Each structure stands twice: as C-alpha cells, then as structure tokens.
C-alpha cells in the first residue's frame, strides 16, 4: 500500500458475541499494513455496522467476526440494512460459524442468503481478499465509465 493511499475498513464482532481476542489481533494486523480500521469491537448489532458505514462512505468492506455460533440470528437484520442501502460495501464474515463441533456447509449457504459476500476462515487472507475486492470494484467502475 502506498503511504498516501487511504484505505478504510469497518471491523467488529457480531451482536451477541463477546469473543475479543481475534478482533484485537485482526485490528492490529490490518493497521500494521496501513489500513484505517474502524473497530466497533465485540457485541456489535447490524445497526451499529450500518451507522459506521454512514460515517465512512469510503469503507472498502464491513468485516464481521463471529465465534459463538450465533452468527445467523446476529445478522438477521442484515438483509434489511442492505435493502435500505445502509450497507453497500462488501460484507466479509469469519470465525466459527455455527453451533456444534460438526460443521454443516448449509450453515455457510445460509450466510450468503443473508447477504454476506465472502466467508473467510484465515484472517491472514483478509488483505488479499480486500485487494481482490478493490480490483473488482475498480474494473467495474471502469466498465461503467467506458459504457
């Protein structure tokens, strides 16, 4: 990232979830490579993410962690917020995304149905994903301009 470039992301943990450690570390790591991180911390309802989007119209993504297994209920208001145009940037989710020790792929599908764009397991892949999403957006814009 060039030093002049300003890249903003919104980070937080889902509404009923207070697992803080990964959130602390991800914020540190993103800041370490130059991102401006609006970290809403633990226990963040969709409403708060939407408010942060209002404050940061240039945010590249909303990054939500969820560990406690409640991600589906916690993101229940996401479709409404997207519908209302309050969250327009890509939504990335990561963590432990269902209750129980045996995971069912259906639970990830249900997240996509709620309007989650990308699901990641390794936070180490976040930067690459953000770069990819930005490249896609730039290309899309160029396409719009060209047409």
């Amino acid at each position: 990232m060039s030093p002049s470039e300003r890249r903003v992301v919104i980070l937080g943990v889902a509404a009923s979830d207070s697992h803080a450690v990964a959130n602390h570390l991800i914020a540190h790591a993103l800041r370490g490579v130059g991102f401006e991180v609006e970290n809403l911390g633990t226990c963040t309802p969709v409403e708060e993410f939407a408010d942060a989007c209002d404050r940061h119209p240039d945010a590249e993504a909303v990054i939500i962690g969820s560990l406690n297994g409640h991600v589906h209920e916690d993101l229940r208001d996401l479709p409404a917020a997207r519908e209302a145009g309050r969250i327009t940037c890509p939504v990335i989710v990561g963590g432990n995304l269902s209750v129980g020790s045996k995971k069912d792929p259906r639970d990830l599908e249900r997240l996509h149905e709620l309007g989650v764009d990308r699901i990641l397991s390794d936070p180490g892949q976040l930067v690459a994903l953000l770069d990819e999403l930005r490249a896609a957006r730039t290309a899309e814009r160029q396409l719009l301009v060209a047409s």
Partner: protein
Amino acid sequence: MTGGVTYLAGRGEAPGPGALPPLAESVDYIASLGKPTAASVLKAARDSGRVAIQPRCGVGGHQEMKALLRDLEERAAPDFLTLTIDSHTRLKRFEQALRTLNLSPGDLNGYPLVSHGYRRGRELNESVAAPLEIRHGSPDARILFDVAVASGITSFEGGGISYNLPYSKAVPLEESLTAWQDVDRVCGELAGLGLVVDRELFGTLTAVLVPPSISLAISVLEAVLAARAGVRCISVSYPQSGHLVQDVAALRAIPALARTYLPSGVEVHAVLHEFMGVFPKDRGHAEDLILYGALVARLGGASKLITKTYQEAFGIPDTRANAEGLRLADRANSRLLGFMTVDEQRVGEELDWILAEVAEIVEPVLAAPDTIPAICEAFAEGLLDIPFSASRYAKSGIIPKRDDEGAIRYLSTGSLPFSSRTRSRNSELLKGADAAGPVIGSLLAELADDINYFPILFQEMDSEVSK
C-alpha cells in the same frame, strides 16, 4: 425476618413464561428435593481430598437439555452438572433468544432458561442427582438469578467485573457491579433462610493469557463485595495457564487470599478451569491437556474442576465427547496417583510472588472508603485492568507474555500500581523470551505464539516468530 427477601425481577423487566413462585416456596422446594446443595458437595469434596468434576453443557431445546444432563450423569456421573446459558439471554436479548428457540433451537449456544421458565428449570433439576450450576456471562443477571433460584438451583456463576468485561462491550461497570450486589444480597438473605447458595466468581476473565495475579485480584475484589452482601460460600475459579508451578501456586494462593481478605465465616473453594485458551485440535493432544489440567487441580488442592473436551477447538461438544472429558479428568482423582509431587520450593516462591502482586493490585482499591466506585475509577485509570477486554470499560493496557518456561508474565504492566520490585522481576523473567526476536514488529507474532502455545507445543502449528 424474611420480609426483605424478594425476587430481583420485581425490580427489573418481567421474565419469560409466567410469574415466579414466592421465594420462601422455592427454598422449601429445594429442601424437599432431597439432593445435596452445591455448597455441601464442594465441602464434601474438599474434606475427602477429591476434586469434584463438572462439565460445561447447554443446548437450546428443553427435551434436548434434559437428555443431555441425564446422559452426562449416566455416562460420567460428574459431581456437578451445568446449565450453560445461551449468549442472547446473557445479554438480556430475551426476544432473540425466544425467537431462535422457536425457530431453530439447535442454533442456540446454550439453554435459554429465562425463556423456558422456572417450571422447566425444576424439571431439569429433578431429572438428575447432581446439583446444578448456572454458568453464563451476564453483566446483569438479576432476572436469570430469580429464575435459577425458583428452579431450585444452588450454584450461580458470575460477578460484577468478571461477567462484564469479558462478556459485553458497553455496560458500565457500575451498572454490572450494582446488579451483582443485588444478586449477592439475595444470596445473603437466602442464607438467612437456611439455603447457602454457592457463588462462583469467574476468575477466567478473557481466558487468553490472563496473568494469575489479575485473575486472583479481581476475584478478591468480587469476593469482598459478595461477602459483605452476605454470601457464605464463594468459589474462586482460576484459569489454567499451562505452567505447572504457576498454576499450582495460583490455586494454593486462593485459601491464603481468603484468610487475608475475607471474614472467616465464609467458605472459600478453589476451582480450576481447565485450559481456557486455544485448544489443540488433535484428539490425543486435547486429551493430554485435559488430563494435565485435572492433575494440576489435584496438585493445587482445588475443590472443583471445570472440564474441557477433545472437541473444544471445534465447537460446542457433543454428549459423548463431554462425558469422555469428564471421565478422563476424573482419573486425576485416582488413588493410584498419590506418588505425584510438584517442586514444593518453586511453588512456594511463586506463591509468594503471586500474593505480593495481588496485594499491590487490590490494596489501594480496598483502602478506599467505597469499594464499588473505587473499582470503577481504578479501571478507568488502568490501575485495574485485564488483557483483551471485550468491554470499553477496561483499558487492556497490560501486555501478557509467556516466559521461557511458559509461565504467564507481564511484558507491559500498563498502569497497574506495581512496585518496582514486581516490575523488575517480570522483566527479568522475560529477558530470555524477548531474546527470541527483536521486540519491534515481532510483538504481534510473539503474542500469537503465546496464544497458540499448546497447538505449537504439540507441533500442530508453526511458530510465527520462528517463521
């Protein structure tokens, strides 16, 4: 004089289905249950030199919860059983809890007792022989506590600091401390009616790299408040750090701290929480850690042990894994392991240091005329602190770090009111560990390594630092 005894819920929102029975009726109900209270099981365990064993367990549906408790009792006969409460209920998100319960109870990460109501609580209680404890994580547990007592449950975990800072983002400490004072006062009143409720404090806090003196200091403050409110049986839980001498010393510090800071009429029990941080994934490694934790509990003289399972790294365990974790932990109670010893001299030294650090943290607070405001202020200034706080109301200015041997020390003591003697011992002990890499830049990697201590020790994962 029992006129003062009322349900707390009367003071707050109305809970789930229907009103609660009169409190005196609940006390009679508990007496009629014919099963021992948690406090008496703890005492019996300590008297017999046995570590009582307890699982974490909680699922959303009522029948499923009943089956879970019964299966665990049948397969592993733990000394205690648990109702782990879901995290909507913990945060008083009762509406969400109820909705998920109705739509898809399997999506709940615990049992929503308030939504189910006290009659079902009693049914659960009656379906097993072991006393039940409520484990949750509620900054304001008053409604939950009411339903718990009405359900005849004689052990209740939490505290105004330890169930706030790790569990919520924006609840002011004063609010949670006051709410928990209410809970503790009712415990005092119940004691007057002949029912001693075991109040376990959650010394585990944020679980990851919590220095023992932080855990114990916060438990001391909560215990002092609880005892003043009339609580008669206090379990002080401590999260296994993974370092034998440190853990044994920390457990043995608990009775010593009780003698110093608590009135003598209060029963105090040491409780070990098996390693609460990042668990190894491989079943054998996880089982090694489970057994080790249980042995530490025995060597440290704990009255009780909260167990983990080999599925810990993956998610809420199934019944079989839970039962197997209990059975494995119970091996530490074996009559055949009397030969196991620990280096008493090193434990003694570590114990002295732990007591000194705890004293340096708690004594300024306890010296203030009013403890609750003093606690709030101290957290605001970082004079009290915890690492990795989930809440805004702690600074998380301290940086924990494992020393060469794996014991948790302070790399930065933040604004903790430590003596220079304490500070220099901590930096002494970390000298070797620091030498591993340049401090600048590698701090995050070192922290990650310390967090992933067991996966790295078991070679499931590479060290970040040595990459």
